[in-house]
């Protein structure tokens, strides 16, 4: 439980301050434990950081797998809607983790982003094969669009209606699957 508290706190702090801006002292204070405890459990700041990344990646990938596996819609529009709704919820839930992936340039973050794009890309291609579609780009489009929506939503200053934006996105891209 100590570990979890430190990990959860560190995730928030790294997301807010970046790897260099965050300090183990601050993380320890915020989590309610001593720096000694933090170092005993995680040895170094770097190790703490990598632990957070790999744990969150595993969890998020697991939940993504579930979303994809549960999507049995045959109709492109329904399929896309279920996929988008799932990705939106996932992005919201793991927003701090995703922020870190986008802001920290390291091997793990690069691999994580690639993995998400690949997974979604291959999944859509398997379900709706069509030689005219670039699936990797489609996956990137879905993820980057969703990121914008959630970022906007979390910071509370919206200039677009989020629900409507997702609907319109689905309308726009459902066409892609209907045309052969």
């Amino acid at each position: 439980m100590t570990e979890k508290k430190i990990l959860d706190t560190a995730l928030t702090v790294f997301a807010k301050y970046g790897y260099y801006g965050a300090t183990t002292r601050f993380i320890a204070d915020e989590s309610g434990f001593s720096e000694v405890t933090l170092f005993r459990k995680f040895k170094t700041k770097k190790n703490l950081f990598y632990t957070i990344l790999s744990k969150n990646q595993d969890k998020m990938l697991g939940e993504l797998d579930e979303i994809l596996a549960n999507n049995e819609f045959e109709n492109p529009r329904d399929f896309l809607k279920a996929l988008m709704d799932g990705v939106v919820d996932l992005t919201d839930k793991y927003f701090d983790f995703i922020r870190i992936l986008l802001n920290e340039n390291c091997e793990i973050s690069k691999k994580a982003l690639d993995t998400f794009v690949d997974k979604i890309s291959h999944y859509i291609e398997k379900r709706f094969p069509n030689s005219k579609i670039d699936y990797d780009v489609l996956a990137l489009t879905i993820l980057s669009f969703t990121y914008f929506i959630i970022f906007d939503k979390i910071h509370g200053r919206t200039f677009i209606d989020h629900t409507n934006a997702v609907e319109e996105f689905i309308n726009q891209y459902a066409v892609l699957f209907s045309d052969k």
Partner: protein
Amino acid sequence: MTDETIQKIIDAALKVFGEKGYKGATTRIIAEKAGFSELTLFRKFKTKENLFDVALTQNIIKFKDEFQSIMLEDKSENPDEFLKSIIIDMAGIIDDNFEFIHIINNEMRGSPEPFKKEIIKGLSEHIKKNIQKDKIDYDTFALTIFMVTYGLSLGKNRGETFINYEENLDGFINNSLHCILSTN
């Protein structure tokens, strides 16, 4: 203090704020990167906050200028040609201004909303004027162009091979043409 010195500090600041985020960036790192002392930096800019605001303001103006130039350029008759060139042009200015756009998309400091809104709405209107199809949501389309070209630049700047960028941009153009022109 020369204008050149000031500009070097602003340029360095943009890079460092982009790499480390507002909170992670320090005036010390920025000064080092610019090749000046922290004292020089403080003398001109007083605070990190002010430096950030100046850097952002300058780049907002720069980006808007480049954006306006694109809006004025594209006059292709053919919708295919038009869409392709507007996407390529947007990708170009976003890539050229990558650090700035990265900050805009990841920091809430400096209230970037009005800027984002202006660009996306501007792009939306411009495309609508040239494509003139009813059933398309141009705001959404403009937003996807903005975010995907940013995402591609992010990948490129992270050290993925340049080839991916070009291929992916082509792929995005093809997907987009497919979506927009197939909608009746």
